[in-house]
């Protein structure tokens, strides 16, 4: 049987030749992402903003009355609701943000939620309530804090591990690549104003894990090659390492992609945000391993001596005494 080879043998793409333009591009991307986050803002869902999100199915209708609902719920005076189709044309999710000034009232979210549901059920008696999330300002604040802590702790902890397992330059490189991945993911959410929920934090941590996986595979090969080819110039060695692991990179990205795409297309609507973020992260993470994590090593001064144990003065003198040097 002839086996499939996704990457032809002896592929030798000069990835690192364009490292400077790509690095500048990446820096601009990070800057643009943060600018978007600060200018557009993140579209926080009820988990982080507080408020209420209710999912309804209009059983006897083909099409949910989205504009009517928008007007009706908006008329309650709690700000503009977000009314979106959810999974099917006759299903909607209605999100009512927490009005200003009630963050400290623990019962406010529930009270508003009850009012919204009562009104809609009064107007459309055959509506089916599929789900309901109500989060008070206090709990939302805790979620925000936990999310930031989780992301920061995860990035630092894994960078620390890589520092211990490899060298400090590799730790910095991995941390920088992760920072890039998280920034660009956040930037995408700011640009497209996708709903940012607790699930997205899970997605970002999965992206961190995946991107790191890629980075480690490349780093592991760089470490191996540094020991093997002591005289090879670093850029050439990095290119060699990236090319040697390219078949694996492509194959793994592809297996993950074919597993995710069905979930994206026919999976439950409640998972769409999570899966979409991870799918995008797949590309961002692969890119950052090749174009950020690897070239950073050049600028950080990794040499083929980085993995050779340094001799202490005493050892050196011992060697001289024994006549070995």
């Amino acid at each position: 049987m002839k086996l499939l080879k996704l990457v032809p043998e002896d592929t030798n793409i000069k990835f690192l030749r364009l490292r400077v333009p790509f690095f500048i591009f990446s820096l601009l991307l990070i800057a643009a992402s943060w600018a978007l986050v600060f200018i557009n803002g993140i579209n926080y869902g009820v988990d982080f903003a507080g408020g209420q999100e209710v999912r309804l199915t209009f059983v006897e209708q083909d099409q949910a009355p989205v504009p009517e609902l928008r007007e009706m719920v908006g008329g309650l005076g709690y700000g503009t609701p977000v009314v979106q189709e959810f999974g099917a044309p006759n299903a909607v999710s209605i999100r009512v943000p927490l009005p200003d000034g009630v963050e400290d009232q623990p019962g406010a979210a529930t009270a508003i939620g009850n009012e919204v549901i009562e009104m809609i059920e009064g107007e459309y008696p055959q509506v089916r309530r599929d789900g309901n999330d109500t989060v008070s300002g206090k709990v939302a604040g805790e979620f925000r804090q936990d999310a930031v802590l989780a992301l920061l702790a995860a990035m630092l902890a894994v960078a620390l591990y890589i520092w211990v397992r490899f060298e400090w330059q590799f730790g910095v490189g991995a941390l920088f690549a992760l920072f890039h991945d998280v920034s660009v993911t956040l930037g995408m959410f700011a640009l497209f104003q996708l709903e940012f929920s607790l699930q997205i934090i899970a997605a970002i941590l999965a992206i961190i894990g995946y991107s790191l996986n890629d980075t480690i595979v490349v780093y592991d090969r760089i470490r191996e090659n540094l020991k093997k080819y002591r005289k090879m110039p670093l850029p050439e060695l990095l290119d060699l390492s990236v090319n040697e692991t390219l078949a694996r990179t492509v194959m793994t990205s592809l297996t993950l992609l074919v597993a995710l795409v069905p979930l994206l297309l026919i999976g439950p609507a409640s998972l769409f945000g999570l899966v979409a973020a991870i799918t995008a992260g797949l590309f961002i993470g692969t890119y950052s391993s090749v174009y950020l994590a690897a070239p950073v090593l050049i600028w950080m001064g990794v040499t083929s001596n980085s993995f050779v144990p340094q001799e202490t003065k005493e050892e050196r003198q011992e060697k001289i005494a024994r006549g070995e040097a």
Partner: protein
Amino acid sequence: MLDFPTWKKFWLWGLTFVAVLAAMPSLFAAANVEWPEALPNPQVNLGLDLAGGSHILLEADPAEVAAQRLENMEETVRGEMRRAEPRIRIGDISTSGGALSFMLDTPADIDRARGLLEPVMMGTNLVREWDLTVVDGQRMVLTPTDDGVNQAVTDAMDSATEVVRKRIDGLGTREPTIIRQGDTRIVVQVPGLQDPDQLKELLGKTAKLEFKLVDLNALPTDVQAGIVPPGTQAFPYSDETPQAGQMVAVRRLGGIRGDSLTNAQAGVNPQNNENVVNIQFDQQGASKFCTLSTENVDRPFAIILDEKVISAPNFNEPICGGSAQISGTFTAQSAADLAIALNSGALPVELTVIEERTVSAELGADSIRKGLLAMLIGSIAVVALMIATYGRFGIYATIALVFNVLIILGIMAGLNTTLTLPGIAGFVITVGAAVDANVLINERIREERKRGRRVVAAVENGYKEASRAIYDANITNFIAGVLLFLFGSGPVRGFAVVLVVGLFTSVFTALVLTRMWVAGWLRAKRPNDINV
């Protein structure tokens, strides 16, 4: 690397067998096939987002507990001073600023007062719950200690949890989970509950029932404005009553509290078809109610529920049978709810719903169906890709993948963890990422062959050289997964559980099991060339 003695093979297959066996009850349940009752039945729990149901997070305000405690202390102090022989006269009682202070009429009583209060200030656990200071030789100030307040909050939350449990049991819902969380929170999870409105209503009531004499001396106009003489309190009528908006003045002390009830039941008054709640007092409550009604025939008393007056009827005659009837403007539903609430006792502190998540059973079932279908299609695509790319080695990876999914299920069942909707996504990602180990190994074997190594050496080197990166990658993923579990909440934790368990099983199946199979094949066939 390729040496597998019999005992090792025995162990590996045994381990796999046990884990797969543990997954069976869950698979049987998913396929709606009955699992024999005689066998152990470890199950993967379905999260509320898949099974349908309601998750409600309740919070108490510790300030309220402190205020309540101060009020109780005031009654205790009054009682102790009154019962003293001879009586100690006190005045100018104040509870402002979080402390209880009062003046002694005779400064000479100070040591006697101190002696009486000393046992009261010590808690049950030998923790000093109150501090006593004397100002100007005549004013005593009781300040709650931090330990005392904390103890009070803990006690209040313990009994609140018990009350919540009783109330939910009263609704007849199945298998609720009720857990204390942190210092002031209670998590309630009720699977299968579609409409949590009734539950929220019920938990939102403290159900503090009081019977107090109406103070007929207070000027009606003053009462409406909320101005009442000392020793009197004004309560508004409940919104459901025709008198809503009006206030009633009652005597602060000398009433009867709802905690002396033994039973409450919803019923209908046959004379006027009104919904009522019949209550039964305990012995002490019955005799107090008897005295109160005998001394006040033809005078009105107020029935107060949660600081709202339900009705204010007259005592028509002495009521000494120990039972009474509360009527107001109840519906059948609200009478039944009140009966449940009264039977479960009053909540010692008001609970507020600060988070609620409800998913209907239909949406949950729909999520499972769509999630499993997507996972099946994704898995088939991954398998096809692996076999097309690595041939025989791809088949080994595929079998490892099947075992991987089964073992994850088995471990989750054994640990009694919960599978949530994000957990299904976790499965899909694990399926996609688990083969990465095999990809790394197989690509390495390809490379080693290309460099001219012989078959066995290439395979051996492939596993050896690839395992370093595999371990590093899995450990870092493990770190990220554990942090997600620690900081995440609710369904997101389910995602972390699947990812973390999946990391261990992936390494086991992809690195260890496939190596055993490949080694067995190499030993049996001794191929000169391999197609990889």
